[in-house]
C-alpha cells in the first residue's frame, strides 16, 4: 500500500514542472514579422479608410453631397455621434496606420538583410514610410485640428497631450521635404509589398511632392509665406503629370481585400445610397459628360438626386455607376486631376507654379475626363458655364476663383470624399444644401472621439478650448474664411 502512495506521489512530483511558466507561449501568432508585411497592412488600412463608404467609417461622400442615404438618413443629416465615425477615423489612423508604419520602420531599420542590394533599399523604404506617416497625420490635422503628435505612439505615455495643429502641420511639411530629399530614384524599395506603386521610387517622389503641394495650398490662407515656399518647392521637385502617376491601391476580387465600396454596395445586398441632389443638379445644369460615368440614370433616362437629409426612395433616384461596384476598382489615394486643380489654386494665389490658373483648371478637367473616359472634353470647357475666364468675370463671389475652381474641383473629386470635404471647407465652394433634419451646422471638423473625452479628459479639454470648442461647426486653423 505504501508503495502505491509513493507511486502516486512520484507521478505527481514528476508532472510538477520546474518551468511551468514556459507553457505560456502563444504558438499560433508570430512574435516576429518582416517590417515589409506591416507596411503592406498599414497601406491597406489607410486606403480602406480613405475610400470607404461605410457609414461607421467615412461619411464624407455624404457630407460632400455626392451621395444621399435612402431611408436611414442620420449621416446625411450630419450626425457623427450615433455611429462613432470620429472614433473610428482616429483609431484607424493612429492604431492601424501610424502605429504599424512606426513598427515597420523600426523593424526594417533593425534588420540586416541577406544581400548588399537588399540592404541598400532601406533608406528608400524609410522615406516612403515617412511619406505615408505625413499623409496620415495630415488627415488627422485636417479633420480634427489639434491632435496628439509629439507624445503620440508612446506606450509609456498612456494619455498623450494634443499639439497645436498649425505647428504640427508645418513640421509635417518639413518631414515631407526631408523624405523627398532622401528618396534615391536609382534604387528600388518595397517591391511587391507596396500595393500602390510596386516600389517605384520615382512615383513615390511625385506622390510626396504632390502631397506637399496639397499641404502647402491648405496653409495659404493662414500662412501664405510657408504655403508659397512649400508649393513652389513641391512643383520644382516634380508633382504628378498624368493619370498614370495616380496613387491607386490594387484591390483583389475576394473579400476582405476588395475595394470597400464593393462590400458596402454589392456584398451587403443593401440599397442605402442614391445620388445626391447637389451634384446631380449641378451636372444636369452643365450637361456634364461625366454623368453616365458617375451615375446610373433613373428609369425615365434622367438623372435625379435625392434631397439632402430627406428619405429618398431607392427606385426613384439615380445610383452610382456600375464601375464603383467592381471589387477591384482601385482605391485612389491621390490623383492627377486634383494636382492640376491645386496648381490652378496656386496660380490663382500668384504662386509661381508654371502656367495660369485657367490652364491648370482646364488640365484638371481634362485629367478627370480622361480618367473616367468621358467624351467631349473640348466642347465642355468651351461651355459658357465651364469656361474659366467667363465664369471668373461673371462670378458674384468675393473671391471668384474660389467658386470657379472649387466647383469644378469638387466635380472632379467625386468618389474622393475626404479630399472633397477639405476642399469645400477651404474654398467654401460649391455651396452645400442644408439637410432637412440637420443635427448640426455644416461640419467643419470631426468632433473628438468619445473615448478621448472619457479616457484622456484633461488633454481633451485643453485641446477643445485651444481650437475654439469641440463642436462640428468650429472652423479649423487653416479654414480662415
Amino acid at each position, binding site marked *: 500500500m505504501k508503495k*502505491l*502512495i509513493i507511486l502516486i506521489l512520484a507521478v505527481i512530483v514528476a508532472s510538477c514542472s520546474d518551468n511551468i511558466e514556459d507553457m505560456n507561449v*502563444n504558438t499560433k501568432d508570430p512574435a516576429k514579422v518582416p517590417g515589409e508585411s506591416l507596411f503592406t497592412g498599414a497601406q491597406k488600412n489607410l486606403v480602406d479608410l480613405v475610400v470607404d463608404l461605410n457609414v461607421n467609417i467615412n461619411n464624407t461622400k455624404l457630407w460632400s453631397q455626392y451621395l444621399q442615404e435612402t431611408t436611414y438618413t442620420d449621416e446625411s443629416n450630419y450626425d457623427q455621434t450615433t455611429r462613432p465615425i470620429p472614433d473610428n477615423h482616429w*483609431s484607424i489612423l493612429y492604431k492601424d496606420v501610424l502605429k504599424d508604419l512606426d513598427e515597420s520602420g523600426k523593424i526594417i531599420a533593425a534588420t540586416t538583410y541577406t544581400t548588399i542590394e537588399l540592404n541598400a533599399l532601406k533608406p528608400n523604404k524609410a522615406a516612403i514610410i515617412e511619406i505615408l506617416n505625413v499623409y496620415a497625420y495630415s488627415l488627422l490635422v485636417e479633420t480634427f485640428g489639434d491632435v496628439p503628435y509629439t507624445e503620440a505612439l508612446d506606450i509609456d505615455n*498612456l494619455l498623450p497631450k494634443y499639439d497645436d495643429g498649425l505647428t504640427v502641420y508645418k513640421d509635417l511639411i518639413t518631414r515631407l521635404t526631408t523624405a523627398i530629399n532622401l528618396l534615391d530614384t536609382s534604387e528600388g524599395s518595397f517591391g511587391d509589398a507596396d500595393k500602390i506603386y510596386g516600389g517605384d521610387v520615382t512615383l513615390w517622389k511625385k506622390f510626396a511632392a504632390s502631397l506637399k503641394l496639397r499641404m502647402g495650398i491648405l496653409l495659404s490662407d493662414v500662412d501664405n509665406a510657408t504655403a508659397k515656399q512649400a508649393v513652389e518647392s513641391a512643383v520644382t521637385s516634380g508633382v504628378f503629370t498624368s493619370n498614370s502617376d495616380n496613387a491607386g491601391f490594387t484591390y483583389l476580387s475576394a473579400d476582405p481585400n476588395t475595394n470597400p465600396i464593393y462590400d458596402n454596395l454589392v*456584398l451587403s445586398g443593401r440599397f442605402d445610397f442614391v445620388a445626391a441632389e447637389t451634384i446631380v443638379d449641378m451636372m444636369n445644369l452643365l450637361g456634364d459628360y461625366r454623368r453616365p460615368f458617375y451615375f446610373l440614370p433613373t428609369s425615365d433616362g434622367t438623372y435625379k438626386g435625392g434631397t439632402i437629409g430627406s428619405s429618398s426612395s431607392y427606385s426613384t433616384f439615380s445610383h452610382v455607376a456600375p464601375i464603383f461596384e467592381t471589387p477591384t476598382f482601385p482605391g485612389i489615394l491621390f490623383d492627377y486631376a486634383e494636382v492640376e486643380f491645386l496648381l490652378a489654386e496656386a496660380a490663382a494665389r500668384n504662386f509661381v507654379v508654371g502656367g495660369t490658373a485657367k490652364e491648370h483648371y482646364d488640365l484638371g478637367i481634362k485629367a478627370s475626363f480622361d480618367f473616367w473616359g468621358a467624351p467631349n472634353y473640348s466642347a465642355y470647357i468651351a461651355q459658357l458655364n465651364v469656361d474659366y475666364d467667363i465664369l471668373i468675370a461673371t462670378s458674384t463671389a468675393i473671391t471668384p476663383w474660389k467658386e470657379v475652381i472649387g466647383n469644378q474641383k469638387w466635380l472632379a473629386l467625386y468618389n474622393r470624399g475626404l479630399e472633397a470635404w477639405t476642399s469645400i471647407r477651404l474654398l467654401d465652394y460649391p455651396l452645400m444644401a442644408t439637410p432637412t433634419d440637420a443635427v448640426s451646422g455644416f461640419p467643419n471638423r470631426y468632433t473628438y472621439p468619445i*473615448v478621448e473625452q*472619457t479616457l484622456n479628459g484633461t488633454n481633451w479639454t485643453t485641446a477643445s478650448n485651444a481650437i475654439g470648442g469641440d463642436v462640428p461647426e468650429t472652423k479649423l486653423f487653416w479654414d480662415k474664411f
Partner: protein
Amino acid sequence: MKTKFSGILTLLLAFVVQITFAQEKTISGTVSDQSGLPLPGATVLVKGTSSGTSTDFDGKYSISASQGSTLVVSFVGYTSKEVVVGTSSTINIALQESAEALEEVVVTALGISRDKKSLGYATQEIEGSELTTVKNGNFLNSISGKASGVQIKRNNNIGGSTNIVIRGNASMTGSNQALFVIDGVPINNINTNSAGQAQATGGFYDYGNAASDIDPENIESMNILKGAAASALYGARAANGVIMITTKKGKKAKGFGVTINSGATIGSIDKSTFAKYQDQYGAGYGPYYGPNEDDYWYIEDVTGDGNDDQVVVYTEDASYGAAFDPNLLVYQWDSFDPDSPNYRTATPWVNAKNGPITFFETPLTLTNSITLDKATDDGSFRLNYSKFDQTGLLPNSSIRKDNFSINGNYKFNDKLTASGYANYIKTNGKGRNSTGYNDNIVGMFKQWFQTNVDIKQQKEAYFSTGRNITWNPATSEAGSAPIFWDNPYWTRYENYETDARNRFVGNATLNYEFNDWLNVTGRVATDTYTEIQEERRANGSVPGDFGITRGSADSGYGRKNFDVSETNYDLMFNFDKDLSEKLNLKGIAGVNIRRNVFKSIYVSTAGGLSVPKLYSLQNSKDPIPLPEETDQISGVDGIYASASFGYDNMLFLDATIRRDRSSTLPKGNSVFIYPSVASSFVFTKLVNQDWLTFGKFRINYAEVGNDAPFDFLYDTYVVNIPPGAPSTSVSNTKKNANLKPERTKSFEIGLDMKFIKNRIGFDFAYYKNTSVDQIFGVPISRGTGYTSKVLNAGEIENYGVELSLFGSPIKTTDFNWNVNVNWTKNENTVLSLAEGIENLQLGSFQGGVTINARVGQAYGVIQGTDFTYSDNGEKIVDATSGEYIKTSTSDNVIGDTNPDWLMGISNTFSYKNLSISFLIDIQQGGSIFSLDQYYGQATGLYAETAFINDLGNPVRNSLADGGGFINPGVNPNGTANTTRIRADRFGAFGYRRGLPNAAFVYDASYVKLRELAITYNLPEKFLSKISLVGASISLTGSNLWIISKNLPHADPESGLSSGNLQGYSTGSLPTTRDLGLNVKLQF
C-alpha cells in the same frame, strides 16, 4: 429503442418478483419521537443486509426480517436505535432527539465533509430534488431564488447559457462566474460564444455554458460556498465563489435499486414578453413614396398591363405607412410571385390575420432516465442513463442530450477504498436562435416589421416553393433577392446551425486510512470535451456578415472545432484527532496540479458557396480565408494546508494557506501565497434557553490570489489575409511582461440562529470584498497606437447582506407548511481603474449605448445620450420641432445593471402524501436598455405608436389634420413646451427624433411565480401490491406568471448570454410558461 427499453423492464420485474419470494417474517410497527409523535420518513434497516424501508406518513413501517436479526432505526436529528427481532411481529420504536440535533453535515472545499456548525463562513445547501422537481432545460436556472447571495440570470435562448454571479462582480474583464466543482473536482464552465455574441452583433449563437451538461438527476446536493474564506483552498479560481456538487451514490435500501424517471414539459408563450402590435397602420416609413414623394405606396406597374399600380412599399421594414382599409385593394409581396395564388392580384389592405406570434411553435421537453443503484457494507454502485430531448419555440430548433454515468466505490480492506466516477455526455444542438441585432428573426419581429404581413402566408410561400419568397424583396420582380429580411421560414429551415459536444468527466480516487485519525487520498480527475459548431447560410439569403472575414455574403459555411480539457492531480492528507476530551484538531495538507488545454480552429468559406446549399469548405466561392487557431496550455501547481481547532463543540477556529505557482505569470512573480482564517462560536452552548435551539456567530477573513489569462505577457502580431502580399498588424493590446498576481480580500461576519425546536430560524451574513491589482487591458488613448495596455490596476469593492429565513408555521402529523426566504443585497463600486483613467468600456452596442466600469459607479453602468434638463429638472424641448433636446455627449450614466436586491420566497405545503410547493422570485431594481423599443417604437410596430391624441384625433394624422403630440417639458427659454411634434412619419416615438438612449432604459425589476409543483407520493400499501418501492407523480409549472415587470414587450431577465455584459435586450425570445408532468418509479 422503445422495444429494448421494455425488454429491460420485463427483466427487472422478473427480478423483483423473485426477491419477494424469499420467505421471511414480516415485522411492522410505528416509529415515534419521545413524545409519541410519529416520525414519517424514518429509516428502518435490517443490519448486515441490504433490505430496508422507511416509515410512511403515520410513522408506520413494515419489513421482512428473520428472528434474531437486528433492526437499525434512524432519523435525521435523532439518535439511531438498534432493536433485535424477537418473537413478536410488532415492534414500536421511540427515538430520542439527538444531543447533536443540528449535526448538519455539509460538503466543503476539496470535497471535505464538515459539521456545518463548525464553519466560520457562509454556505448554503440546495437538495438535488429542488433542482429536479420542476424540470428545466438547464438546471442552473433552477438555482434562482433558492439561495441568497447568488444572482442567476437566465435567458430564453434554446440551450443558452446562464449567468451565475455570487456576491457581485469583482473582476474587471475576467470571468465573474462561479466555479463548479463535482465531487471535489473542478469542471469547466466556459461558454465558447464569440465576442460578437456578447455585444449583440448579429449572426452569432449562444452555445450555452458547459456546466449545464451536468444531469441534475445525478445531483445529490449542491452546496454554495459564497465567500473567499470558504473557497480559499481552491485557490485562484474560487474568488468568485464555488458551487459544490455532490453526486448521488449507490444506497442501501430495500428493493432492487432501480429508479425510473420520466417527465414531459410543454411551453406556451407568456404574451407579456412578446410584442403587442398596433393594428391600424401597415408597411412604410411615412408619406415618402411615389413620383411626388408624398404617397404611402410605390407606384409601379406590377401587373404588366402598362398601367401603374398601387404597391405596398415592400422594401420597407417598418409599419409607419398607410392606415388599413379593407376596401382598398393593393399589390402585396405575394402578388409578385408567379407561384402564389395572389400573383398579380391586389388584396385588401388589412392588418395581418396571423401575426408574428403564430411563427412560434410549442416547445416540448422530454426527460427520461433510468438509474440502478445498490450498496453493501463493502461498496456501492450507481449507473444512470438520461435522455433529454427538447424542441424550441422557433421552428427547427432542438437540443438533445444523452448522459451516461457510473459511480462506484469499493472497500478492498479496512484501510483501502477505491472509488470512481465516469460521466459521458453527448449534446446535439440544432437551429439555436441567432442572438443580437442583425440576422435575428425575433429582432425583426420586435424592431423591423410590417404589421400587414401574414406569417401563415409566408409559411406557405416557403414550403410550397422551397424558395426564399420574402415579404421584404428588393424589387417587385419575380424571384427578387431580399433587401433586409428573409422569409423567416427560409431562415429557420435553410440557415440553421448545428453543434455537437462529446464530453467526458471522470475521476479515479484511492483512499488509504493509516489509522483512525489519519488518511490519504490520491485522485486523478479529468474533464474533457470536443465540440463542433457548424454555421450555414443558403444561397439566396439576405447578405449578412459571415465567417472569418465577417464580410457580407448571401451564403456560406463555417465550422469551429474545440478541444478542451482540464486535468487535476490531487494528493491530500487528512487528519482528525481529539487532542483532549474537549479539544479536537482537524487538518489537511495537500498538493494540487492542474493543467488546462484549450484548442480551437475556425474555418469558413468566403464570398458565398459555389454549389448552392452544399455546406463544405471546398465549396467556397473565394479562396478560403486564413483559419483562426488557438492553442492554449496553462497550469497551476498548488500546495495547501489547513488546520481546524474545535473546543467542546462550541468554539471553532479554521486557518488555511495555499501557495500557487501559475504558468501565466512571469517567472519571479509566478508564485503567490494567500491565507484565510475563520472562526465560529456556538453561543447556545453557554445560553440555555428553551426557545433558543441554536445560535452561532461566525467571522472570517481571507485573501485569494489570481493569475493572468493565457498569453498576457508577450506581444505578438496579427496576421491579415494577404492583399496580394504578406500583411501583418501590431496587436491592439500591449502586453505586459511584469505582471504580478491579482488579489481579492474578503471579510465576513454571520449569525445563524434557530428557535423553538427548529421551527423557525435565520442565517444572516454581511460581507465586504475588495479586489485589487486586477489584471486587465486598461483602455488608453488610441493616440498611443493601441487600444489597451495590460496592467495590474483597478480596485472593485463589493459589500452586501444576505438573509435566509426558514420557518414551519404549521407542523402536525398530517399537515406541514414550510417557508423559506432568501434575500440578497449587494452594493458594488469601482474604486479605481488606472492612473488617470476614469472609465473602462466593457462593451459597446447597437444604438450607441455602452456598458462600463466607471470610477465611483457600480460595475456595469449603462452610458449613452440623455435628456437635457432645465434648472428645475424639467426636460428641455426644442420649440420649433417639439422634439426633446438630447445631450451631444454619449458618456452620460443612464442606468445601472445591478439590481437593488433579490428575493426568493418558497412555500411548501404537505398533507399526507401530497405536497404543493411554489417559489416566488423577485428582483428589485437594475436597469436594462431595450433596443427593441429604441427601434420598434420608431418603426411604429407597437400599440403605443397609434393612439388618440389629446385633440381626439389619431396621433398619426398630420399636424394639419390634428395629429401629433406634445412632449412634456420646457423650451430652452424656460416656458412650458407647447410645440406639437409630428407623428405622421417614423421616429416620433423611437430613436430618431430627439429621444436619447435614456428614454429606452427600463427598470428591470420583476416578480415572478417561478415554480409550482404538486407532488403525490403513492402510499406504501398501494405500492407493495404492484411491487414498487416508491412512486410519485408531479405536476409542475415554471415561469407560470410574471406578476409584475416594467420592461414592455419582453422579459427583463432575458439578456444575451452569460458574461459580464448584462442589461441589454434585443430580439430575445419570448418567455414560455412551462407545464410539466413527471413520474418517478422505484423498484
